[in-house]
């Protein structure tokens, strides 16, 4: 593809600059400096095509005939942001229950039927979306799709299966709530979004899961699982015609419900920077994060934001990894992330470190956020992070499931399919000025600090720089509340 070629040519120039030999000495074979890269080769990826069924279902097909494989994913454009108040986990249970029994097939029968085809089936509910899909050899497409349609259109939501899944989910929570990094991600949700639609845990909490009733699940399903709120994505050894034919055959009879989904709007307007420590006396490490509201998916600042974030915390050569991992040996890996959602978004930068180093890492994270403005991302650094983003993107399109998931990411937010082609040129067009402006607007102003770990090891040094930090004992942590503290 042309854009990729342009991008690689730029990098060729960059590489020539990078490898000017710093000094001469003779090594093995007398070859002491890197040979220059050859001229780049061009590549391209397929353009997905689209059709619509009479019931409003979008059908999107990426024709990728090179291997006899097929990924099919049905996405629903709502998920945990639509969980009813105090019933965190409703979308997640609803999504997971699809494959746990239909009017015709039991959960074991569904698993056995798909796996006998050599396939794998998945279903879930998460933020902004729910999905059900299958990965299978393309020769088994028809039977696999018949089962996929059955689980998506005729889930039974049997009480027995609801109870079983709740128990399993609660046991899963018991385990993840013993891991400082996982606890931090739950806390970050509340710190950034408070009581808003994105504030609660998608997978539910130990208190909300038991409270969810079958009627809540059925209501969620009836409200959001509808053809005009969905897209069916094929990626693999299939044509548009064949995909449409399959879709018509198994999803054609899907009816639009009368009830329209009520619009969701999430806000982060009430956010104020704060410092929260969750004291886990047995934690083997501390998870340290800075976090704050950032941008939603359709923000015009999306691409500059990705580049700013990549310079800060994506890859071994990112600023956070240089300072925290490589220079000081304080962590196995530091990273940052822009979590963009439909109506809001969050930024976080984090690292896990030994408990004793938590305060030091908090200061280092803070310093690197500020440095994005004072020491702008430019020249080779800018080019290298653009290449990292475009390279990761190109590799994500190498597999059928990866390609389907990139399409799903657009369909969930109702973005045009041409956005797939836009990514590489848009990233490469980002300038130093835009990155610095993004940092100045979103990242440099004060953030919230979240540390989960053994507080006795770091709380004294921490209080010197974060005197307002409040410490919540693990046993007092309440993920259902914006203030995170159990009411006595």
């Amino acid at each position, binding site marked *: 593809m042309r854009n*990729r070629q342009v*991008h*690689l040519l730029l*990098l060729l120039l*960059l*590489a020539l600059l990078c*490898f000017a030999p710093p000094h001469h000495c003779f*090594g*093995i*074979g007398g*070859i002491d400096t890197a*040979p220059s*890269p*050859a*001229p*780049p080769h061009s*590549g391209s990826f397929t353009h997905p095509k689209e059709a619509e069924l009479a019931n409003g279902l979008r059908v999107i097909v990426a024709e990728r005939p*090179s*291997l*006899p*494989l097929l990924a099919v994913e049905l996405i629903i454009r709502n998920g945990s942001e639509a969980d009813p108040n105090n019933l965190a986990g409703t979308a997640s249970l609803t999504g997971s229950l699809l494959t746990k029994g239909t009017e015709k097939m039991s959960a*074991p029968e569904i*698993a*056995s039927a798909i796996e*006998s085809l*050599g*396939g*794998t089936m998945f279903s879930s509910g998460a933020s902004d979306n729910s999905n059900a899909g299958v*990965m*299978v*050899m393309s020769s088994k497409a028809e039977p696999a799709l018949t089962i996929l349609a059955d689980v998506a259109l005729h889930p039974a939501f049997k009480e027995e299966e609801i109870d079983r899944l709740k128990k399993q989910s609660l*046991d899963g929570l*018991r*385990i993840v709530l*013993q*891991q*400082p990094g996982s606890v931090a991600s739950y806390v970050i949700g509340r710190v950034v979004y408070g009581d808003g639609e994105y504030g609660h845990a998608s997978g539910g909490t130990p208190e909300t899961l038991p409270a969810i009733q079958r009627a809540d699940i059925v209501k969620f399903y009836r409200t959001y699982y509808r053809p005009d709120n969905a897209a069916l994505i094929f990626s693999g050894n299939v044509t548009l015609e064949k995909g449409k034919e399959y879709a018509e055959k198994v999803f054609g009879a899907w009816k639009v419900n009368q009830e329209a989904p009520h619009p969701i709007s999430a806000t982060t307007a009430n956010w104020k920077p704060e410092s929260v420590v969750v004291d886990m006396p*047995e934690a*083997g*490490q501390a998870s340290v994060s800075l976090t704050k509201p950032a941008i939603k998916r359709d923000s015009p600042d999306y691409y500059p934001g990705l580049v700013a974030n990549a310079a800060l915390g994506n*890859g*071994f*050569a990112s600023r956070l990894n240089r300072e925290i991992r490589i220079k*000081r*040996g304080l*962590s*196995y*890996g*530091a990273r940052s992330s822009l979590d963009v959602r439909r109506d809001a978004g969050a930024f976080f930068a984090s690292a*896990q*470190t*030994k408990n004793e180093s938590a305060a030091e890492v908090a200061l280092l994270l803070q310093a690197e956020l500020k440095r994005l403005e004072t020491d702008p991302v430019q020249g*080779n650094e800018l080019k290298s992070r653009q*290449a*990292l983003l475009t*390279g*990761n993107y*190109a590799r994500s399109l*190498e*597999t059928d499931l990866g390609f389907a998931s990139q399409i799903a990411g657009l369909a969930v937010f109702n973005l045009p399919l041409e956005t797939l082609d836009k990514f590489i040129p848009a990233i490469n067009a980002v300038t130093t000025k835009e990155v610095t402006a993004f940092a100045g607007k979103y990242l440099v102003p004060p953030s919230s600090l979240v540390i989960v770990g053994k507080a006795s090891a770091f709380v004294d040094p921490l209080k010197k720089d974060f005197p307002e930090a409040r410490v919540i004992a693990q046993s007092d942590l309440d993920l259902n509340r914006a203030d995170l503290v159990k009411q006595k």
Partner: protein
Amino acid sequence: MRAGRLLVLFSTCLTLAASGLAREPEAEVKKLSFNHTTLQNGLEIYSIEDHSSPTIAVQVWYHVGSKDDPDGRSGFAHLFEHMMFKGNEHLTPETFEQLTENVGGENNAYTAPDVTVYHEVVPSNYLEPVLWAEAERTASLALNDANFNSERDVVKEEYRQRILANPYGEFSLATDQKSFAVHPYKRPSIGNIAELDAAQLPEVKGFHSTFYRPDNATLIVVGDFKASDLETWTKKYFGPIPRPTTKIPRVTDVEPPRKEDRHEVLSSAKAPLPAFAVTYLGPSARSNDEPALDLAEEILSGGQSSRLYQSLVYEQQVARSASFSADLREDLGLLTFRVIVASGKSLPEAEKSLNDQIEKILKDGVTEAELDKAKNRFLTGKLMERETNNGKASALGEAAVIYRDPNHINTDLAKYQAVTAAEIKDVLNKYIAGKKKVLIEYLPEAKKETAKPEDKKKP
């Protein structure tokens, strides 16, 4: 995912362990045609030309792993792997980033019990510089106390993240530690803090000269290149590296057959639910029993229709998770049943359920339908591995180094397809029935007193 030079705690042969075959696999999976050359200094080179995308996967497999950790230096091979990124007189600590992620590629490495693998994916015009850089670090490393100490700290943080910050981290370490009596497979790849602290810089240099040599390495190149270029560049950059005259030391410890059952009890302040593992000694990955054991693994614990999921997790709800792994390594393998007990259920209840399932499969074997399902899943997995250059490179490296048969990438389908239900029953009986087991219990601290191991008769 977090950035990090990766550590693989289990044998790489597990990556292929999802097994299965369709009726006419040749129709579905095309044979991969690869080239093989050996340089005069002993470096083995395997390559597959494929111009479907402008990228190339490069992997260097060194035949040295955590089983080769020096005495009293558990975790050393993995610590050493990290030092391979620190440069030499021509490479800076940034070189691999400059040649990979900074130009749109990626790089990483992992240490397994038998091998250490360095891998990159790059835009295809970067093949020559990456080959140069890989050859450079095969030839020499320039190390100093400052970069050694700081990287050791990174590895200690990796240990804390994987083991200490994970409620079942110490349980997973214990499986190998308690299961092997003599063989260095008992030492965990990640090591421990005390032995990492004890490592000295001169030992790093010694390890490089002992194991990082062309006659102990296999180069894999898959993707968009010309064969003539590859030949020129490998000769130019790897060719001048001398082959040492010393012998490469190999692990000679032989794990003796177990004389008695063992029962180990560990406790954890972090684990919310009890867990246990039951292990048996298994054969080498090169054993003829491998395909049948892999298919048994798939039937017992691949997917939600598998026996252990259906019985322990779904039907009886005594387990949060239940699995069986046939972790076959170069010298010998370990067959491991692992269960995390569901809340409200006792460890003895879960153990009885597991034993019932083991007895059942040993007595009645598996059905034709289960066998077909396992073969189909293997075939799908094999096709998915072929989706990327890196997937093909990993399969070729494993075939050449672990199986010592590069054509294994093309012959494994037929081998799996030929396995019968009777063979699966036989092979499970061969390694489990009447054999001595090690039972490892991992108990939440408060429950240490109450959960008494049941004196079950051995399956």
